[in-house]
């Protein structure tokens, strides 16, 4: 047994030791300082980054005799503010989950019946290789006939490097179009970036649909709830549900789902018609404001008009608009994350961005800020060109389909057999489309049509149960991942180090990609030589080995270095070896960290001095020296807001009118269209979905520690409506939509508006491999219809009508 001591203790001047066998205790106790507990000396503290959700909170893993015994918050990371939520602390049970995927598996029965046989890694790679060779030969080296998707994570890029850059498929899907693509795009096209809401300084926040108490986002959650309830931040929550966030609101406005755009347009109408917006800011920083002003005023978007649609009283709308502008520029219409509720979502996000901008709260302390990002070095990849690789299949399903596609649009084309060329297989990394993409029936149909489905994951998810080959990844506590830089007012670079060696036969994705690539390189090169005329020509001109090497056809090349070596290269090229030592010891680095970082008390840390934070970063009018002016603590944020600045948009201004959208048949300015709104007929309910703070989508549903907190999801229904229907707490309800049917227990409550039902996303796993999650509650995506919005092809999550029946 080798006992390691922490680097920190080593630097404190103690002695490195390697103790054999049972002599460890006596050896260490002699060298320990007298007050140090003996057992603590055997504990190794490894900085890691949590992967229980997407926030990347810095944590410290306590490792004793090779076992992770506790996860604690790592105070050094400004973004995670010295905290670890319920899921973060429960990460140990992701590591020691008895249901984990432990060995490579190959399907032994029919798809979906869960019968697999244990194989060696080489057998699994060989199986994939043989199938791919056959498929690519038949498809004449059209690499895009294999789709791939990935869940969000530090190692997502490693997988993508292989599939996109090396293997050469264009058909990539990720969470964007079932998540926040419309919001990111709406804000970026309007103000030049999605930005971050400065919740530490904002004085007035409208939070519509977003639920920061239950859908924790760092640092917003930690910053805002210390300032609500009369402590500096006025909070307006607009939501069909009275959430834990609404509990903290000064004003809670229950709204009919799908009508947020009408609410924002009415706020805008009030601001413009009464001229209470920041006129200096708008004159200097907006383009086409005259068009927007005319559009809003002539559109008749009055508070009275909005009251009929949203259910929010006109005088409330007037008051919110006035209060918002009175607190501007430190007023934010909060951007939100998991979005795309209905087909007008892109326009909704644009209208929200414009409304915040009308107050001047962009790129200013207390508003939406862009922050600074610390650079990292490059890791170049030599990507081969495949002449026969086709463009992605779903590029016409919406006005602007990006590199991450349209999950629902893409899936439907495959499931319905409407693709321009066959999609023969799919690689799935860390995503569970069976539970995360609307209309699970079609997702299953899609997988059933494929000749090769490979799933790389840590858990036997419902999606894994449809795979031909399952490759077990190790958990985040068992691997080092690519070093990452986080932009913000207080930017930092973080590193996930390996706490323990991978258990069972699991591997990090970097190793899986390397080994698979090594297996595939030669056979796939033969296919390319056979079908690719460009390569054939090149070989005639040059020799084969040169074309192979210079063309980047060695697929394993980006993965040959260990992750630690790659991280070292990317980091040291910018910050040097001394900084590298700090990063590895603390798990976090930013310039001057050791002098800036201060512990104020057990609850409070300072990361950057106040005058060193990056609140305003855009280039200002030339008469101001940005560096000196923005960091002058005496300058009022209002004065900073009024300066003319250069936004990262085509016109370098806040864009009211998107001319480029006209040709794509998208409204150039946010407009309400009655025909886009799904009305709720008598006897039906609109279904909405959402998050809570104890589970992350479907990825943590088998975690025994979290199941202690909540075992299944419940159907929220307005208590008065429930009474009329004779529904009581705990009754089993059959929920039916056009695409599916589930059974779930009822929770009648005054906390939801009428004609609306809700249950939490992520539950309802059917995989029998998930012992603890198996059939707990219901999956929302079994009943959510697969319609998409017209701009980016994002899934409309809140446009499904359902009927209820008590069973």
């Amino acid at each position, binding site marked *: 047994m080798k006992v390691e001591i922490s680097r920190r203790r080593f630097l404190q001047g103690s002695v490195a030791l390697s103790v054999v066998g049972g002599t460890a205790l006596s050896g260490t106790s002699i060298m320990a300082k007298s007050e140090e507990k003996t057992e603590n000396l055997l504990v190794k503290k490894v900085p890691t980054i949590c992967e229980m959700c997407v926030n990347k909170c810095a944590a410290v893993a306590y490792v004793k005799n090779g076992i992770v015994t506790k996860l604690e918050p790592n105070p050094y990371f400004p973004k995670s*503010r010295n*905290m670890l*939520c319920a899921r*973060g602390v429960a990460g140990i049970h992701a590591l020691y989950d008895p249901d984990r995927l432990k060995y490579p598996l190959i399907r032994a029965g029919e798809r979906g019946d869960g019968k697999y046989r244990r194989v060696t890694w080489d057998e699994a790679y060989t199986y994939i290789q043989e199938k791919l060779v056959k498929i690519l030969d038949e498809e004449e080296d059209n690499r895009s006939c294999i789709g791939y998707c990935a869940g969000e994570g530090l190692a997502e890029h490693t997988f993508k490097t292989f599939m996109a850059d090396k293997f050469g498929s264009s058909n990539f899907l990720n969470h964007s179009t079932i998540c926040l693509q419309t919001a990111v795009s709406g804000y970026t096209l309007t103000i030049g970036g999605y930005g971050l809401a400065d919740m530490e300084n904002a004085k007035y926040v409208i939070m519509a649909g977003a639920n920061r*108490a239950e859908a924790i986002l760092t640092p917003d959650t*930690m910053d805002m709830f210390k300032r*609500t309830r009369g402590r500096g931040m006025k909070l307006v929550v607009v939501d069909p549900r009275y959430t834990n966030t609404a509990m903290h609101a000064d004003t809670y406005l229950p709204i009919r789902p799908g009508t947020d755009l009408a609410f924002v347009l009415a706020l805008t109408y009030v601001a413009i018609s009464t001229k209470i917006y920041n006129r200096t800011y708008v004159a200097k920083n907006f383009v086409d404001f005259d068009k927007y002003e005319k559009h809003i005023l002539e559109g008749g978007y009055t508070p009275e008009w909005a009251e009929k649609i949203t259910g929010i009283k006109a005088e409330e709308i007037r008051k919110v608009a006035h209060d918002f502008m009175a607190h501007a520029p430190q007023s934010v219409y909060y951007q939100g994350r998991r979005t795309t509720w209905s087909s007008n979502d892109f326009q909704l996000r644009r209208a929200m961005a414009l409304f915040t901008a009308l107050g001047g709260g962009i790129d200013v302390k207390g508003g939406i800020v862009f922050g600074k990002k610390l650079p990292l070095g490059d890791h170049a990849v030599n990507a081969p060109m495949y002449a026969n690789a086709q463009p992605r299949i779903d590029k016409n399903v919406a006005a602007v389909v990006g590199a991450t596609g349209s999950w629902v649009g893409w899936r439907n084309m495959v499931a319905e057999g409407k693709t321009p060329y066959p999609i023969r297989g799919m690689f799935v990394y860390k995503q569970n489309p069976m539970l995360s993409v609307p209309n699970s029936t079609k997702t299953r149909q899609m997988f059933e049509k494929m000749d090769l489905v490979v799933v790389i994951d840590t858990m036997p998810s419902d999606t894994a149960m449809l795979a031909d080959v399952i490759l077990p990844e190790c958990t985040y506590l068992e691997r080092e991942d690519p070093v990452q830089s986080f932009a913000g007012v207080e930017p930092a670079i973080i590193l996930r180090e390996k706490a323990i060696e991978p258990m069972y036969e699991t591997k990090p994705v970097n190793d899986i990609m390397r080994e698979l690539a090594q297996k595939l390189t030669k056979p796939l090169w033969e296919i390319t030589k056979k079908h690719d005329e460009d390569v054939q020509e090149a070989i005639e001109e040059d020799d084969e080995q040169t074309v192979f090497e210079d063309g980047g056809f060695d697929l394993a090349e980006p993965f040959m270095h260990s992750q630690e070596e790659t991280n070292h290269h990317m980091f040291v090229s910018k910050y040097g070896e001394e900084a590298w030592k700090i990063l590895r010891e603390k798990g976090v680095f930013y310039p001057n960290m050791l002098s800036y970082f201060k512990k104020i008390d*057990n609850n409070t840390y300072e990361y950057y001095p106040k005058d060193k934070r990056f609140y305003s970063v855009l280039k200002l009018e030339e008469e101001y020296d940005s560096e000196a002016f923005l960091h002058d603590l005496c300058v009022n944020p209002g004065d900073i807001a009024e300066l003319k600045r250069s936004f990262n948009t085509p016109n370098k201004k806040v864009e009211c009118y998107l001319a480029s959208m006209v040709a794509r048949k998208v409204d150039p300015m946010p407009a309400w269209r009655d025909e886009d709104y799904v009305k709720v007929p008598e006897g039906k309910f609109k279904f909405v979905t959402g998050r809570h*703070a104890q589970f992350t989508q479907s990825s943590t549903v088998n975690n025994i*520690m979290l199941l202690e907190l909540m075992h299944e999801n419940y159907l929220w229904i307005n208590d008065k409506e429930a009474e009329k229907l004779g529904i009581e707490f705990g009754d089993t309800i059959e929920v039916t939509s056009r695409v599916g049917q589930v059974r779930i227990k009822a929770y009648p409550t005054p906390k939801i508006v009428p004609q609306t039902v809700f249950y939490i996303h992520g539950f309802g796993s059917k995989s029998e491999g998930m012992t603890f999650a198996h059939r707990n509650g219901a999956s929302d995506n079994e009943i959510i219809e697969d319609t998409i919005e017209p701009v980016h092809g994002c899934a409309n999550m809140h446009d499904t009508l359902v009927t209820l029946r008590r069973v």
Partner: protein
Amino acid sequence: MNYAMALDYQNCINCKACEVACKEENGVQLGADKQRIWVGVVEGTIFGKPFANLYPSQCNHCIDAPCVSVCPTNASHFAEGGIVKVDPHKCILCKGCMEACPYDARFVDDTMVAVDKCTFCDHRSLEAGGTTACQATCPTKVRLFGDLDDENSDLVKLLKTKRFFFQKEYTNTLPKLFYILPDDEAYAKQSVSHDTIIHTWDDIKPLYEEAKNRRSKEWKK
């Protein structure tokens, strides 16, 4: 030493990080009907509008702890700094302490065959700069653990600047979870009842010091 905790309960979002951190730190039995630590939820409607208040809670480590008084075997005892603990080897599971506790802060841990409860994480919180697992992990930093005897502790410094109340003060057990009342009068009224007694450090300090002097001879060093 007289250990206590202040709770800025207005920060709580009921995320239950504290509950999980407590279980992981202390190996609390899973599946038990109660825990060492919890978030009390009071919710309902006023004129048809929903409202909710959250009261994160745990053992109050009362100075006049009735659970200690009723214990027939001295399993329940005062440890260093007045922390109320249970010695599982002495516990005979008579459950008298569970009956006596006004806060329902005790439960049976089947894995230890003994009554279990919050220990203020005294294995880690008493070290220099140390704190409890629940405080360390909390996203919105509801809790502040400290020593009432130390005028320079962050705890006492906070209590000197705030008004606070106790839960179930009428049971006269001198509890040591200090609930920090919001400065904002409207919000203060929303989360306390009309008969809640509001305290300041100046009025509570002599009372708690007297009680400590009276009982601390029972405290283990």
